[in-house]
């Protein structure tokens, strides 16, 4: 069991599609593909930056990461961490998604996302804990 965390910058405007709409599509495809590979994880979208966590068998993570790296809808892919993990943190999600929006009710989510984006590089463990809280938050 391994866990991969990486960040990247969305490169979607080029296609003319709205960022959020395209991201929804990515999440939908990812969820089906990840189920096949027995991967779980989460995708965050913070002001045009993706933060993704993938967990599962190392080979399967490598396969998924390879298709992700062949995708031109994002750029500047940076691996934050690839480490053995004791268990799944996102066992219930083939691919959870949290994105920042302009919804006033989502203010706290936006703030958390910002914080995660800023700290993920230097303190991945702490950021991961925060992501976990965010995903387990009751969504309405």
């Amino acid at each position, binding site marked *: 069991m*391994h866990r*991969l965390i*990486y960040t990247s910058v969305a490169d979607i405007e080029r296609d003319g599609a709205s960022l959020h709409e395209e991201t929804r599509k990515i999440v939908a495809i990812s969820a089906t593909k990840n189920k096949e590979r027995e991967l779980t994880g989460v995708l965050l979208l913070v002001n045009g930056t993706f933060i993704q966590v993938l967990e599962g068998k*190392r080979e399967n*993570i*490598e396969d998924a*990461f*390879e298709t992700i*790296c*062949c995708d*031109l809808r994002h*750029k*500047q*892919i*940076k*691996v934050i961490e*690839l480490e053995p993990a004791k268990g799944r943190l996102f066992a219930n999600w083939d691919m959870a998604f949290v994105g920042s929006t302009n919804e006033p009710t989502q203010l706290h989510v936006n703030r958390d996302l910002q914080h995660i984006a800023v700290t993920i590089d230097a303190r991945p463990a702490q950021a991961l804990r925060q992501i976990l809280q965010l995903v387990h938050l009751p969504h309405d």
Partner: protein
Amino acid sequence: MKVISCVLTQHNMWLVLLAAIMCIVGMLASVQLWQRSLVAIGRSRVDWCFLTGVTAGSAIWATHFIAMLGYEPHAPVTFDPQLTIISIIIAILGTTIGFWLSGSRNRFIAHVAGGATIGLSIAAMHFVGMFAYRVDGFVMWDDLYIAAAIAMSVTLSVATTAIIKSEQSGPRYRRAAQATATFVAGIVALHFTAMAAFSVSPLRGVSIAADSEAFGAMAMAIAVVALLIVFTGMSSHLIDGRARIASQNELLHIATHDELTGLANRRQFKEILREQCEEFEFGHTGPFTLMMIDLDRFKPVNDTLGHSLGDLVLHKVARRLQKVLDPNDHLARLGGDEFAIICAETRDTSQVRLKAGQIVEMLSRPLIIQGHLIELGGSVGIASAPKDGASFDDLTQNADIALYAAKAAGRSTFQLYQPSMSEEILVRRSLEADLRRAVNREEFEVYYQPQTDAKTGAFTGAEALVRWNHPERGLLSPVIFIPLAEELGFIGSIGSWVLKKACMDAATWPAHLTVAVNLSPIQLLDRRLVRIVKNALAEANLPAHRLELEITETSLIGNDVQALAVLNELRELGVSISLDDFGTGYSSLSYLHRFPINRIKIDRSFISRVPNDPDSVSIIRAIAQLGTSLGMKITAEGIETDEQRVFSAGGGCDHLQGYLISRPIPYKQVACLFAEAVLQKPAA
């Protein structure tokens, strides 16, 4: 004609028709197999001949047997099973031998012996078959017809062989058709002529005719079995043909493709580019673009993680590059970590830039392979036809120049070719040529920069610094030519020359003075280094403790194991090791503690900022303290002012070096300086 009347009056026409179909189909297949057997070589020729023999023999025998069943002698007929079986075996083995002989290179053996064997075995099969044909009646044989039958069989078989073996041009199938017709003619002629030689008068009182219904069923069964054999033989031939075409295609693929990535190889790339240039010349296509791609940092990956992992990297990189391509683009691997793309349709530079940018982006993405995180990068050089040339040579050369420029611009970028790039390369090329000559003629000089004791101000030794005495450009600093020498592989010979010279010079100095010589990271990896040092010391008769070798942190990073081994060996010789430019790298002192280092030289960039910059002040103090506690000596480099000297001496540095004390000077001057100092010392 007796033969024709025999066919017409004494035979069941349905069975004759069946026999005819059997014969034609069988011979068509046999001729195909026969032709195949002629191109087979070695052991497989025997196999193909046998397969042809089984097919032809079975078909011929079935033809004969069915036709015989169609013969209506108006008398009861039975068959001797043993002789019947023997007749099949004769047909199969006899023709097999004939087919095998027909493959001989000797024309006489091939045509006459081969053909005759086939003809004779058909005849033998027929007559043995006739002996198995037991008819209750009075049998008579006409010798003349027998002879005629055998003669026709042999003649037509020889003719068939000649047709098959003839080297006349023309479509293959026509020859096959001719051969089949002749073959069929031989079999038919033999059969009916031989039947004409045969006559039966029923015994009186016995008038039961042959059971034609049972014969008809038997004939059908034999036809089915024989056709099965024929089709089996034919399908092996077809399968073989398909396999051969497939393997020919595969061979072509291997010749034109790179085995590792499945991309076009250099050969195929050349062909495609040449074709593209021609098409353009004839106006069939518009502007097109050539991109040359080199991976950055691939070699260290290959060296440290192994070739099989390196191969996986190349494979994945190739897949990623393909994602950026348009349908008309050709991607090739030219070898090693070099790739090339021919973009068949180029609209404008912005499109080229977009694609090149995507390629650079793709190549800069991390790879994860077997748990290893691998960070590569790629540089791209671009030449567009017709702007940057329209011939193969111009385009490849200019794309290479642009690639070179991209690498010089710091890698992980792309560059479009510009004519000015050629000039820069020319300058560099001439410098390369000069350097080559300089190495041969030893156009180098060693200068020395003296070092002093921080407390007493007395000389302790000097650092040897190489200068290139360029015939036109004067004295050149190592900063200009050492990187070039490293790249061209001259650093080893320049380095050993400097080492030898420095040892010789130092041996003439007063015995308490040391000499420091710089080692490039490449020298440190050279297995011969220890021996070179030993020889230099021995030749100059210089005690090892008077030689100090200066290395940089970068030599240690990445190849610590080998570096450690070499440094330990040098230390055993008695040579001391100092760490140059300290503070500019990433390493912490505690990490460096693992290495046998005697001295740390604090980089001039810190010294130049003291005593005013508090950060530099505290860094120097910390380095000096920690270094001293680890048993190392500390040298402050780049001392230019008295303030710096005072601070460094007070801050814990043991030795000083810099313009304030002396610039680097030639051997003669430094020798004088040292000699004077020794003379003055007792006086002082």
